């Protein structure tokens, strides 16, 4: 398994020539020698904690030896992985190589390109060949490379505590196959994770044929695809929907977090952004209605958001369907729904006005009936075939974990093979899985970590990481993609398909052969060529699930509706709904030991290293945990008590159906009033140092009957407090002009609304008259001084780098945060340090809520009168998100104050850091208005995070394994040094060098300007919604120049005359003026107007003008109308 592009086949003589042997043992092939060969290292070597550099080098050397120079007779079949076209043939030291692979997750996969440095993968990018993702990738994919080098992953096979050699493990698996082949598999059971792998599907089919009596069950704690039952009932076929958001002008989400949590969300986010992006007045803009209980990323993008309990979504969907279709079948279900009827009526009317260009999406966790209704609405609106396609998928024939549990209880399982997953941690609570698993005679557990399930299994087989594995997978729309190893298994793990093949007793059990056979059978043609193409492109052409036409069966629909009773019972403090959500970073708990993910704050709550029981402000008040605030509330009241910067959360006991769990409660604006939202994936008891003990496990109260939401819960205080690491203490923009928003209707009349906000709109231009007349490119190089006397830096480089961030499309998925962390060797600092406010992320996402009530009457609280808006927490806020990294100010305030010239400008407009020169006065960080500079308060890279305060007494040095993930092109910073974003200067330099080499070779040495789009920053590359655009602003045709030339372009805090190179494009909202919760201006804009022009209250109290009157100053002041606050 080497990485050479072309490798000659073993010669005839090598295969049949004279046989050399090293010892008599080898000649006679004694078992001891065979084991010795398989071992590679002396016994016990691989049980060492982690891998030291020496053995890693041996491992690498061994991979070459095995692949190319092995003894004749021990040769494995040739297994080449093919570098992606971007790389150069062979290895050039210092230059990274890119290989296509994919990250499988449940029933889908994300196609990736892995960047490898001298044989070790360090960074993953989306594979641009897969058009639906356009080169983007997700937060989880970005972080998954760290798992490969997790020093605490399972490194050896164990059996009852003893180390099991690879050969013995093979024998064990083969033995299982042999034993059960005789009895047709009776007594054998498998519990696997969901998988999209065609090879696994093939092997499972073979398994069923060979062991017809064996149980094959699959379990996923969370589902990210619509239930197959809905499609089967309504269409009578095994199909699943693929949404075409780009074509949808009106979108209704029924509790669906399609931008983040659903399978295919990368594609959906990208498509949604296409319909959202407005580059000129004439561009259409989609409108998103969301009814949901939790505040999801999708909900944060909503133009109209209805806070509705998840259990009421069914009735809501029926009511909507009733309005649209006029069908009486829905009436029974819709009964008793307690929301403003206009909401449904106007929403339905809007959808009806957009037949064929509208879309209704139901959340994957919602029951089949809700999906059936959504399908029916889409069918009725003529959306099927236009904004939603149905594709044919294989029917799922696996049994559920509950059925498996029954089989175990019935004592009919003798051998249980647990393939991946972690049922001891996440199986439905009522199964009491740990006891169940212990009752099985032989449990063979195949897993990546030695976790809760392994601890209860007799045998643990160490799994290989997907970056060490041969495999295949399907994307959400069915395209077959390869999973190629970038490196030999660091600890000799095997893959799931290899495990299955060994149980099956197949002649070829290596992953390569298995995948080769599957893919060439699927792809047809010349098998070698097909496979080569497959590996090179990173996907198999024309392998997507076929789109089929479907016919709605009214009877099927009626049946589904008839079978599920509506549940619109009033919720209250004594009858709470609990909504279990997949965590943004931990997923279902499988990424618990990933430090990047643990430290990445939740995009909405901004809590890292923990989960919390999220409750609405109203419920918070009823529970008596609403923070008190101050006597005079100068700024808006915080949503939590913050003690010395850490959130001091009340710990409550959540009781559902007699089961309890304790967890901290966090007040979260925007939730349905009586829904407690709990993220899964925390509270691991057997993970590594990173994952163990972070948060609490909500699986303890979660049953198979109600995996996503359940009612009848209560919250009781324990009277104790717990500190949470919340990275954003304050939620309100305080009426400042940070995120400038307008409604789409206003924008069309007044496209440069951003210029009418902020201090610049009241002050003479910083650029002066001369500067105002310049083009952006001129401004960048000449830096017009305006009224300033000071000399300004010379920007005479051939490139002038700049960035534009479109706030209108940013969905806040956090992928950029972790992509930046992976690219720039940013350390994690641990919960304790995050609580102190010392997180190191170079790019962060600021999340603000607005409710239109910040009115600047802070004194009202003290001097009587109505309580001011400042002492109110918003129940139904609008959410605004803003990614912030160093803006590379042309007149950088950080540079002026650095006494030692450690942060200076280069001639291409980058504000660079000379780490070696930095002595750490931190003055630059103080003077940075964006607060994007990060200081190494400790040796985060060298000292264990739990002994930072021990100083020199703490162990020193980074584990060798962790060093492997570092990007060799970026300095690893030591303590006492300031650091920050430099637009990925290493990528810029690489791009420039490569371009220079290319043009010099082509005889055009003077052509040194890198073409637009060649250099991408890490955050830009990963962004699924293409919010971030980076490039040369001297080139008027570059994407970034075009973006900056747009009317919504503004500089954050531009009045400071710091002239940031990163500018923002204003945010737009597209509300429906007929909706009951319509506000003529975005709520943040109302707050801005009230704070800055509080005298202007003349216009429209209570009225709802169709469009805001355009006033000369643009400061129309409109109070928000009452929001329909969901079910109350």
């Amino acid at each position, binding site marked *: 398994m080497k990485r050479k592009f072309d490798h000659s086949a073993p010669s005839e003589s090598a295969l049949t020539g004279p046989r050399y042997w090293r010892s008599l043992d080898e000649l006679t092939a004694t078992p001891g020698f065979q084991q010795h060969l398989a071992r590679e290292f002396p016994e016990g070597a691989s049980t060492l904690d982690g891998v030291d550099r020496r053995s890693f080098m041996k491992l690498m050397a061994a991979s070459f030896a095995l692949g190319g120079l092995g003894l004749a007779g021990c040769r494995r079949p040739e297994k080449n992985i093919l570098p992606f076209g971007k790389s150069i043939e062979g290895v050039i030291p210092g230059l990274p190589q890119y290989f296509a692979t994919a990250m499988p997750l449940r029933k889908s996969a994300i196609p990736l390109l892995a960047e490898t440095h001298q044989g070790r993968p360090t960074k993953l990018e989306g594979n641009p060949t897969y058009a639906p993702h356009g080169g983007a990738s997700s937060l989880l994919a970005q972080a998954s490379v760290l798992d490969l080098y997790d020093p605490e992953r399972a490194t050896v096979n164990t059996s009852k505590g003893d180390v099991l050699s690879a050969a013995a493990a093979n024998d064990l698996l083969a033995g299982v196959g042999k034993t059960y082949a005789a009895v047709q598999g009776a007594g054998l059971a498998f519990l696997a994770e969901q998988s999209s792998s065609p090879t696994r599907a093939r092997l499972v089919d073979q398994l069923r044929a060979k062991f017809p009596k064996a149980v094959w069950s699959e379990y996923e704690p969370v589902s990210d695809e619509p239930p197959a039952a809905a499609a089967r009932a309504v269409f009578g076929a095994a199909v699943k929907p693929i949404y075409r958001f780009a074509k949808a002008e009106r979108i209704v989400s029924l509790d669906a977090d399609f931008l983040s949590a659903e399978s295919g969300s990368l594609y959906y986010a990208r498509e949604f952004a296409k319909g959202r992006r407005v580059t000129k007045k004439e561009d259409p803009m989609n409108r998103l209605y969301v009814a949901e209980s939790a505040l999801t990323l999708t909900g944060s993008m909503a133009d109209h958001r209805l806070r509705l309990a998840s259990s009421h979504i069914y009735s809501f969907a029926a009511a909507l369907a009733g309005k649209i279709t006029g069908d009486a079948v829905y009436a029974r279900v819709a009964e008793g729904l307690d929301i403003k009827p206009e909401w449904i009526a106007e929403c339905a009317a809007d959808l009806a006005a957009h037949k064929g260009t509208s879309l209704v999406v139901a959340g994957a966790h919602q029951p089949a009936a809700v999906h059936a209704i959504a399908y029916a609405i889409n069918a009725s609106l003529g959306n099927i075939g236009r904004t939603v396609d149905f594709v044919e998928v294989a029917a799922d024939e696996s049994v559920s974990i509950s059925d498996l549990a029954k089989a175990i209880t019935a004592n009919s399982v003798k051998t249980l093979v647990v393939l991946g997953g972690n049922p001891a941690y996440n199986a439905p609570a009522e199964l009491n899985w740990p006891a169940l698993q212990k009752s099985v005679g032989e449990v063979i557990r195949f897993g990546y970590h030695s976790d809760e399930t392994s601890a209860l299994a007799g045998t643990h087989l160490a799994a290989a990481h997907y970056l060490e594995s041969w495999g295949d997978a399907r994307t959400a729309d069915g395209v077959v993609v390869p999973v190629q190893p970038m490196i030999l298994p660091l600890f000799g793990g095997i893959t799931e398909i290899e495990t299955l093949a060994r149980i099956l007793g197949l002649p070829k059990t290596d992953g390569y052969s298995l995948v080769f056979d599957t893919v060439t059978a699927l792809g047809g043609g010349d098998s070698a060529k097909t496979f080569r193409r497959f590996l090179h492109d990173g996907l198999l052409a024309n392998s997507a699930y076929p789109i089929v036409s479907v016919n709605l069966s009214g009877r099927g629909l009626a049946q589904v509706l008839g079978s599920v009773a509506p549940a619109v019972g009033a919720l209250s403090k004594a009858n709470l709904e609990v909504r279990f959500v997949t965590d943004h970073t931990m997923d279902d708990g499988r990424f618990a030991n990933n430090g990047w993910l643990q430290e990445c704050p939740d995009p909405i709550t901004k809590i890292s290293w923990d989960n919390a029981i999220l409750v609405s402000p109203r419920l918070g008040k009823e529970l008596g945990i609403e923070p008190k605030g101050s006597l005079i509330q100068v700024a808006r009241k915080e949503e939590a008590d913050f003690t010395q910067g850490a959130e001091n959360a009340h710990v409550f006991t959540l009781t559902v159906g007699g089961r309890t769990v304790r967890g901290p409660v966090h007040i979260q604006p925007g939730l349905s009033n009586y829904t407690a939202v709990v993220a899964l994936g925390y509270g691991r008891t057997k993970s590594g140092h990173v994952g163990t003990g972070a948060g609490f496990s909500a699986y303890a109260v979660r049953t198979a009957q109600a995996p996503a939401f359940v009612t009848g819960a209560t919250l009781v205080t324990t009277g104790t407090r717990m500190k949470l690491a919340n990275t954003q203490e304050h939620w309100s923009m305080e009426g400042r002009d940070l995120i400038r928003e307008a409604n789409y209707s206003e924008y069309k009349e007044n496209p440069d609304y951003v210029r009418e906000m902020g*201090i610049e709109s009241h002050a003479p231009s910083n650029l002066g008259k001369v500067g105002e007349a310049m083009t952006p490119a001129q401004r960048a190089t000449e830096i017009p001084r305006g009224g300033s006397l000071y000399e300004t830096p010379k920007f005479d480089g051939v490139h002038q780098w700049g960035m534009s961030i479109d706030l209108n499309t940013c969905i806040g998925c956090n992928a950029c945060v972790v992509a930046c962390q992976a690219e720039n060797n940013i350390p994690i600092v641990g919960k304790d340090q995050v609580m102190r406010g010392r997180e190191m992320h170079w790019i962060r996402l600021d999340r603000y809520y607005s409710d239109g009530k910040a009115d600047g009457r802070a004194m009202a609280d003290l001097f009587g009168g109505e309580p001011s808006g400042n002492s109110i927490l918003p129940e139904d806020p609008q959410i605004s998100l803003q990614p912030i990294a160093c803006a590379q100010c042309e007149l950088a305030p950080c540079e002026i*104050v650095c*006494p030692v010239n450690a942060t200076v400008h280069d001639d291409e407009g980058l504000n660079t850091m000379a780490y070696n020169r930095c002595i750490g006065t931190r003055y630059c960080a103080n003077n940075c208005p964006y607060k994007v500079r990060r200081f190494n308060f400790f040796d985060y890279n060298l000292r264990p995070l739990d002994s930072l305060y021990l100083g020199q007494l703490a162990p020193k040095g980074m584990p060798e394994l962790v060093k492997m993930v570092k990007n060799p092109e970026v300095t690893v910073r030591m303590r006492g040094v300031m650091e920050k974003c430099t637009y990925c200067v290493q990528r810029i330099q690489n791009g420039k060098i490569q371009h220079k080499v290319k043009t010099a070779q082509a005889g055009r040495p003077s052509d040194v300007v890198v073409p637009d789009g060649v250099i991408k920053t890490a955050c830009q590359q990963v962004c699924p919604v293409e919010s971030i655009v980076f490039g040369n602003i001297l080139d008027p045709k570059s994407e970034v120049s075009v973006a900056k030339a747009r009317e919504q372009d503004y500089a954050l805090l531009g009045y400071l005359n710091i002239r940031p190179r990163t500018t923002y494009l204003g945010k737009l909202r597209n509300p429906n003026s007929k909706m009951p919760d319509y506000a003529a201006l975005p709520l943040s804009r109302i707050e801005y107007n009230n704070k800055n022009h509080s005298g202007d209250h003349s216009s429209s109290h209570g009225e709802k003008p169709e469009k805001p009157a355009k006033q000369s100053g643009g400061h129309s002041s409109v109070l928000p109308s009452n929001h329909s606050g969901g079910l109350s």
Partner: protein
Amino acid sequence: MGAHHESSSTAPAILAEVNPTALPRAILVENNRSYSWITEKICGIIEGKTPTWWWVCFALACFVASFTVAGISYLVATGVGVWGHANPVNWAWDIVNFVFWIGIGHAGTLISAILCLLRQKWRTSINRAAEAMTIFAVVCAGIFPVFHVGRVWYAFYLFPIPNSNAIWQNFRSPLEWDVFAVSTYGTVSVLFWYVGLLPDLAILRDRFEAAGQRARSFIYGFFAMGWRGSNRHWSNYEMAYLVLAGISTPLVLSVHTIVSFDFAVSLLPGWHTTIFPPYFVAGAIFSGFGMVLTLMLPLRAVYGLQDLITQYHIDCMCKITLATGTIVGYAYGMEFFIAWYSANPNEGFAFVNRAFGHYAWAYWIMISCNVITPQFFWFKSVRHNTSLVWILSIFVNVGMWFERFVIIVTSLARDFLPSSWGYYSPSIVEIFTFFGTFGVFSVLFLLFIRFLPIMPMAELKAVTPQADVHGGEKH
């Protein structure tokens, strides 16, 4: 002097001309003390047996100073993280303490230099100790900017030392200006103090010589640099002293002006304000006099120096404290006016937040101590109640520490982007490090009062009534 006037008033009932009586000059050395009394009194402190209380205080001071040593050692060994700093509050107690100590260091040079130039003779009995206080305060102040940096072993990058990379310092940075301002101030203060010590060191040399204590005589003689008290020496000495006073005078104003630039030159709301230089200088003098009172009143009581540090001195210092305290109070008000008048919402918020936000407690401590406390000095009865003056002077010191805290921390904690707002609390290491600097200061000051003349004997003698050749007669 009043007595002299009375005795000479044997004139006729009708005056030849109206000759208004000059306001009586305050007596600077009371009880008509002789030259030798002064010499004995001051030299006696050094020559006498070391009192027990001194040893107790010295041991205690050393113990307290060890907190700073331990705190700094731990800091250097571990990282700045042992302090409470975090984004967005990247400066806190370190710079607060720096400005606090530097501010205290202002009174000494002001008393020595400016009052010297203005011929305020009452300065003589307090200037030596005040100058010593200045130097020790600068020592304490210097600890913080040096050790608050992340990599103290590279702190020499701050000095324009030629290096192989030919990288210069950034002369646009106020921190760099600080380096020059503080080091210049420290150097000149030491020189000024030392020059003033020369005649007194010579007295001690001679007295130890006479007492047969050769070793001590040699040491004092070494530092007395061959002072013989000749007319030539005196004339050179007077000129040197005057020149140094001239050099020091602008430094008194410049050091704190430049320290204030650390804030005024930045763009942070609450820092970025042109009122800072005069406001900081006034505050520094205010705190400096506060500290002089805090130190001199116990000293006066312990050594029985009531004749040398008279009620008149205390009155003068109280009045200066009152004046500068009122200027500081005015500045606090003016800040609000400027913030409002600028119409910049960020500025406005910064100041409202100071007074009513999360750190309002610090703001109101500051206002109570700095604005209200000095107002008591309007009343003669207060100025004459030494204990009360001492207590009030402590309040001034506390208030001025809080002023720096309010300026630095509240502005940083809540600046432009609410997403980055935070709250700073000191760590135990920080608290002890600061606490320890009082020990460092005390150790140095105790050594000073034990081994050096705490008052300039020669100058004192020049302001005694008997030094007046006219015996108080007016001409």
